C-alpha cells in the first residue's frame, strides 16, 4: 500500500468517525485528511458508506461519534447552513434541486443577492458566467429545473457548489449522468479548483477518472477504511481493496483474459 502523504496545509481531518443508522453501521471509525490544493478520491462499492460520509461533512446527517477538525479547530457540523458557512460545498448524489424553481433560483437558493429586493438581473448574469465556466449546455436559465436533462441538472448542481467559492468541494458521483465532453469539463474544473488551492473530495466509480485527477485515493469498504493509494496504484490493487479480496470477479476476468493471450500474470 502506498499512502501518498502531502506536506500542504491540512484543511479537513476526520478521526474515528462513525455513523449508525439504527442497527446499521454505515461508517465505522473512518479517518481521512484533506489538504489544500489536493484532490482526494473516495472509492468503494455500492453501500460502502461514501455518500453517508459526504452527508455528515455537509451537515445533512449527524455523526454518531468521532471528531472532525476544520482548519485546525474541532467543529460540529450540525446543519447544512453550518457546513456552507465553514466553506464546505457539496454536489449531492441526488443533486437536491427544486424542480419548481428555475436555474437561477436554484443556483442562488439560500444565497440570494439582496434579500429584500432580489437582484434578478445580477443573479442571472452570474448564473450565465458560472455555467459558462463549466461549458454548460443549458439553453435558458429561466426554465424550471423540471425541464432539464439529467446531465444539465448535474451541471447546475456543480455550478451551485462553486457559487460561494468554498474551501472544500465534495462531489458525489458528479459525472454519472454526464456526456464525454462534460465529464472532461468537470475533471478540468476539479483541477482548476485544486489549483486555486481548494480541497476536493471526489466520489466516482470510474477508476480512469479517479486516477486522472486524484492525488490520493481513499478506499472505503463496508463502512471502514480499507487503504489509501496514490494515483499510480494499479487497477488490481484498487479493485482488491474495494472488493476486499485478491481473488474477485474482476481479477478472475482479468486472469481469464490474460491466460487466453498467454501472458504471464504478475501477482501483487
Amino acid at each position, binding site marked *: 500500500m502506498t499512502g501518498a502523504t502531502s506536506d500542504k496545509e491540512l484543511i479537513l481531518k476526520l478521526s474515528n468517525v462513525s455513523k449508525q443508522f439504527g442497527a446499521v453501521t454505515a461508517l465505522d471509525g473512518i479517518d481521512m485528511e484533506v489538504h489544500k490544493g489536493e484532490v482526494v478520491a473516495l472509492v468503494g462499492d455500492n453501500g460502502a458508506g461514501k455518500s453517508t460520509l459526504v452527508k455528515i461533512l455537509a451537515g445533512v446527517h449527524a455523526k454518531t461519534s468521532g471528531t472532525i477538525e476544520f482548519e485546525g479547530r474541532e467543529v460540529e457540523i450540525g446543519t447544512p447552513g453550518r457546513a456552507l458557512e465553514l466553506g464546505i460545498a457539496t454536489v449531492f448524489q441526488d443533486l437536491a434541486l427544486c424542480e*419548481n424553481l428555475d436555474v437561477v433560483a436554484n443556483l442562488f437558493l439560500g444565497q440570494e443577492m439582496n434579500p429584500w429586493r432580489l437582484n434578478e438581473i445580477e443573479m442571472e448574469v452570474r448564473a450565465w458566467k458560472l455555467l459558462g465556466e463549466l461549458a454548460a449546455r443549458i*439553453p*435558458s436559465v429561466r426554465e424550471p429545473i423540471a425541464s432539464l436533462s439529467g446531465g444539465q441538472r448535474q451541471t447546475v448542481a456543480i455550478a451551485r457548489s462553486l457559487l460561494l467559492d468554498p474551501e472544500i468541494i465534495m462531489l458525489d458521483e458528479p459525472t454519472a449522468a454526464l456526456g464525454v465532453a462534460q465529464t472532461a469539463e468537470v475533471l478540468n474544473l476539479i483541477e482548476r479548483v485544486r489549483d486555486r488551492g481548494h480541497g476536493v473530495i471526489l466520489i466516482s466509480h470510474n477508476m480512469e477518472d479517479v486516477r486522472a485527477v486524484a492525488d490520493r485515493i481513499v478506499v472505503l469498504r463496508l463502512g471502514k477504511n480499507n487503504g489509501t493509494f496514490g494515483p499510480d496504484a494499479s487497477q488490481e490493487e484498487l479493485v482488491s481493496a474495494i472488493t476486499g479480496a485478491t481473488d474477485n470477479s474482476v481479477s478472475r476476468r482479468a486472469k481469464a483474459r490474460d491466460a487466453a493471450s498467454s501472458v504471464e500474470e504478475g501477482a501483487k
Partner: protein
Amino acid sequence: MSDTQKFDRADSRVREDTGLAGAARAFVDRVRSGDLGMIPVILGLIVIAVVFTSLNPVFMRPQNLTNLLFDAAAVGLISLGVVFCLLLGEIDLSIGSMSGVASAILGVLWVSVGIPWPLAILAALAAGAFTGLVYAALLNRFGMPSFVSTLAGLLALLGLQLFLLGNSGSINLPFQSFLIRFGQILVMPGWLSYLLALVPGLVIFVFGMQTRSERAAANLSVPAMSVLVAKAASLTAVILIAVWYLNQGRGVPYMFVFFVLLVTGMEYILTRTQFGRSIFAVGGNREAARRAGIKVERIRIYAFMICSTFAAAGGILAASRLASASRQAGTGDVNLNAIAAAVIGGTSLFGGRGSAWSALLGVLVIQAISNGLTLLNLSSSLRYMILGAVLALAVIVDSLARQSRASHGRA
C-alpha cells in the same frame, strides 16, 4: 451570430420570442404544457357572468357588483393567508374558525369590555399569529401533519368562539364607528378611483422600462417594448372599464381596495424576496431547501403565522361587514370557500406553485357564484352542493395540469 452576443441568447436552440407575436406563441406553448395560468379563472368568470345574468339580470348591475366586492374582501383575506400554507404543501383547515374567533375577540373587547377598536383588532391579530405559531410548533416538534393539527384546531377554536360569546350568542357592533362604515358603506370618490385605476398600468410600465434598461446594460436579452406597452395598456383599460362601471352604481369599496393592496404586497414578498423564494423552495423540495441552508422550520413558523393572522384579519372584516360578532361567524362554507378560492386562482394543493393573485382571482369566482346563487333564492343546501362541486372541479383541474406539466417536463 453577432459579437455582441447576449448571455441568454447564445444557445442556438432557444427560440427568440420577440414582439407581440412571439409573446403570443410563448403563451400558447405554456398553456399546452399545462401551465394554465389565469385562463380557467377568466373562462370561469365569463361563464358565471353569462349564466347568472341570463337567470337574473340583477347580477350584472353595478350595485350588485359593488356588494359582491364588499363580500369578497373578507374571504379574500383569509384566502390570501392560506396561499402561504398551500405553497409549503401544507394546509390550514381552521382558517374559518380562526376568523370566527377573531370576530368574537373584537366584539368582546370592543363592545363588552370597552377597549378602543384598533386595540381590539390588534389583540385579535395577535391571537391569530399565536395560533399559527402553535400549528408550526406541532409540525416542527412532533411532525404532526398540518391537516390533523388544524382540524383539531378547527374544533378547539370553534369552542373558544362559543366560550367568548357566552350566552348572548351574538354581539352587535356600533353602527356609527369607522370600522363598520368601512365594512358596509365607504366607497371611493369617483376621481380617486379613476386615479388609482391608472396606477397598476403605470407601475408595470415604469418598472418594465427600468428592467429593460438594466437588462440591456447587463448584456441580457430585453423583452419587447410592444409587449410591455400592450400589457400595461390592456390592464389599465380593463381596470378603467371596471371602475367606470362600478361608479355607475355605488362605486369602488375602500375595503376591496385594501384587500387588493395587501394582495400586491404579498405578491411582492412571494416573488421578490428571499423569504418568498424560500417558501417556494420548501414547497417544491423540502430536503433540497434544507441542504441549501434554508431554515425550513423557521419558514414554516412564518408561513403558518401569516396564514392564521390573515384569517383573523378576514374575520374582522367579516364582522365589520355584518356589524356583529356571532356564533355563526366563520362557520359553514367560509373555510372551504377560502381554500377553494386559492386553488381556483391557481395555487396548487401539492405545494411549490401559486401566487398571491390567486386569492384575488379565486375569491372573485367563488363570491360571484355565491352571490349569483343567493340572487336566485336557492336554499343554502343547494348552494353548498354547488360550491362543493366547484371546489372538486378546481382540484381536478389542478391535478390534471400537474400531470400535464410532469409529462411536458415543467414542474
